[in-house]
């Protein structure tokens, strides 16, 4: 903000060297209305208003606004999990079993489930078998699922940006080594590797005897997903940095004696943040799905800790989905809606930040 010591003088200076032509130029509205300057692909046109223009474009797209609203609702759902369960009057861990909760018997005369269908007491019904409240488990599970997805995305984005920037900036042998490591990471069959590594990591971190409700599986998922997601972003960032470091403003920074660290963090990284942001919004749904897949396969979040993948796993594990498809439909539906919303939002952000897309 402007320093209060400086009078907000609007009057042109008396100095005759001040160009009137340029003053006229400053009066013209900012770049949103002026045609973009011819620039190389690496040069981010529009600079700071990039985010402003992007926001405008998002607001004008119905799909973008819709997906943004859905994402916001899901995030609220997760944040307000304790509040919402309190309103419902249930918690995610108490087993409500016994004849009071029986919903009926099937043809051979076995108990089918406990309050399988939504009711005023149990908004999404009760879990078959253990009889826990599905709504409360979905709300608390959303917290775990989103936290894993967001944290692992942050880990990937941080690693990808720093490693990619280092490869692009230092070049030469550093670049060669990092690039080969990236190729290696991209070539690995992720699922197999993660499936085999997660149990190892979990036992290394916390021994075999896991307390029930331990957050260790969550931490290990963050580490594993984060650690395997950086390579693609690093490659993209590397390319950007390769062209950015040849720009004159980087030379100028070297000329006045800026340190390497300052050049990387103050000159180069701010200019790749647009790409990084787009990639991050695309990576979140990938990680939500990955968490669900791993928990579903039994190497992720473990009962009784709820996550959407874990609830799916519970539905599948006891073959409950045969007699009680609703129990499977709730987490599956929530996942589909969430991933779809994040993906659409990611597309919208990419379109909005793309300098090559038409301006409107």
């Amino acid at each position, binding site marked *: 903000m402007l320093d209060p010591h400086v009078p907000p003088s609007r009057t042109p200076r008396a100095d005759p060297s001040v160009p009137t*032509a340029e003053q006229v130029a400053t009066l013209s509205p900012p770049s949103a209305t002026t045609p973009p*300057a011819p620039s190389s692909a690496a040069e981010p046109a529009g600079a700071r208003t990039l985010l402003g223009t992007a926001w405008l474009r998002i607001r004008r797209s119905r799909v973008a606004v819709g997906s943004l609203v859905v994402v916001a609702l899901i995030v609220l759902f997760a944040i307000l999990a304790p509040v919402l369960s309190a309103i419902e009057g249930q918690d995610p861990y108490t087993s409500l079993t016994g004849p009071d909760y029986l919903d009926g018997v099937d043809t051979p005369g076995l108990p089918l489930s406990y309050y399988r269908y939504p009711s005023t007491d149990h908004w999404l019904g009760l879990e078959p078998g253990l009889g826990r409240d599905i709504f409360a488990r979905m709300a608390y599970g959303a917290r775990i699922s989103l936290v894993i997805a967001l944290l692992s995305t942050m880990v990937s984005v941080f690693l990808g940006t720093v490693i990619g920037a280092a490869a692009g900036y230092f070049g030469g042998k550093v670049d060669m080594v990092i690039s080969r490591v990236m190729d290696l990471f991209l070539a690995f069959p992720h699922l197999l590797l993660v499936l085999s590594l997660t149990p190892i990591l979990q036992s290394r971190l916390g021994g075999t005897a896991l307390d029930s409700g331990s957050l260790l599986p969550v931490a290990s998922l963050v580490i594993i997903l984060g650690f395997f997601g950086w390579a693609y972003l690093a490659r993209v960032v590397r390319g950007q940095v390769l062209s950015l470091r040849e*720009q004159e403003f980087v030379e100028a920074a070297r000329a006045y004696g800026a340190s390497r660290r300052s050049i990387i963090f103050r000159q180069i990284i701010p200019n790749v943040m647009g790409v990084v942001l787009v990639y991050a919004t695309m990576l979140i749904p990938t990680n939500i799905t990955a968490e669900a897949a791993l928990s579903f396969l039994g190497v992720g979040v473990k009962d009784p800790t709820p996550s959407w993948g874990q609830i799916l796993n519970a539905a599948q594990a006891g073959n409950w989905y045969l007699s009680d498809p609703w129990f499977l439909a709730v987490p599956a539906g929530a996942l589909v809606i969430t991933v779809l919303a994040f993906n659409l939002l990611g597309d919208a952000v990419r379109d909005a930040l793309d300098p090559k897309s038409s301006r409107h």
Partner: protein
Amino acid sequence: MTQLLEVTDLTKHFPVRSGAFRSGVGVKAVDRVSFSVDAGQTLGLVGESGCGKSTTGRMLMRLLQPTSGSIRLDGREISELRRSDLQEYRRQVQMVFQNPSSSLNPRQSVGSAIAAPLLAQRITPRGGVKAAVRDLMDRVGLRPDHYNRFPHEFSGGQKQRVGIARALALNPRLIICDEPVSALDVSVQAQVINLLEDIQRDTGVAYVFIAHDLSVVKHFAHRVAVMYLGRIMEHGETREVFDTPRHPYTQALLSAVPKADPAADRSGRIRLTGDLPSPTDPPSGCVFRSRCQLRPRLDPERAALCADSVPGGTIACHHHTTGM
């Protein structure tokens, strides 16, 4: 006039790798260039594109490491300086770049771009940086309320003023201007040139002014050096070089300056034939001999001289002393 900068036999080779062959072929971008700059004076470095003038400027700024040769500031050799000494040198010598758009970080406000050298060199106490930046902005004709604006909000001329303020921030004794006006409109060029002249009058800063526009150099520079294919062809006082060019390349270059008067006599115009030779394979001896307009008129005995290397001196031609 005290000598500030002395450049002797400065040379830069770039290795060229073609395909699988890692032959020793290199581009001699700059080849044994020598000149000097006096304190408070301007040296114009002119030549067509690709002649090595920007490479020379970047070596002076130590953005490129010279292959060989010496650069002396106040008699002190700087081509081998390391870290802390180099940091000290960068306070003495600064640079203004050609493209005002790409020389400013699009994500950095103008104020913080000008403050950056002060912070990097830690010469101004943190509390005084803002005031120092405002002072610099005032000196280059930017308004204080431009402080928090971003480069894309400015015209080319204003951006170049920001670049000049940034170069001035460290109060250097020499500024290397790498074609500072060639990306600007003609009307804005004059304003920026006037600004540079005002600054020189006020601070006594010296310039190495790299340009391909001869009329700008003629107006602005005290001395001028003409480069061709990485070498200096002619070097002398601006008035002398422009009034009585003695090297055939300088003559051709000057005769190519457009004349505003349509009735002007153009018969004296020298048209060079042929293409610029490849810098990977320049002609032996005098590099200009493949295009020299003088050579066809020389008798064979003297023309043969051109294949010998040209002796050092202010005019790199075998024949200038003997006239044409």
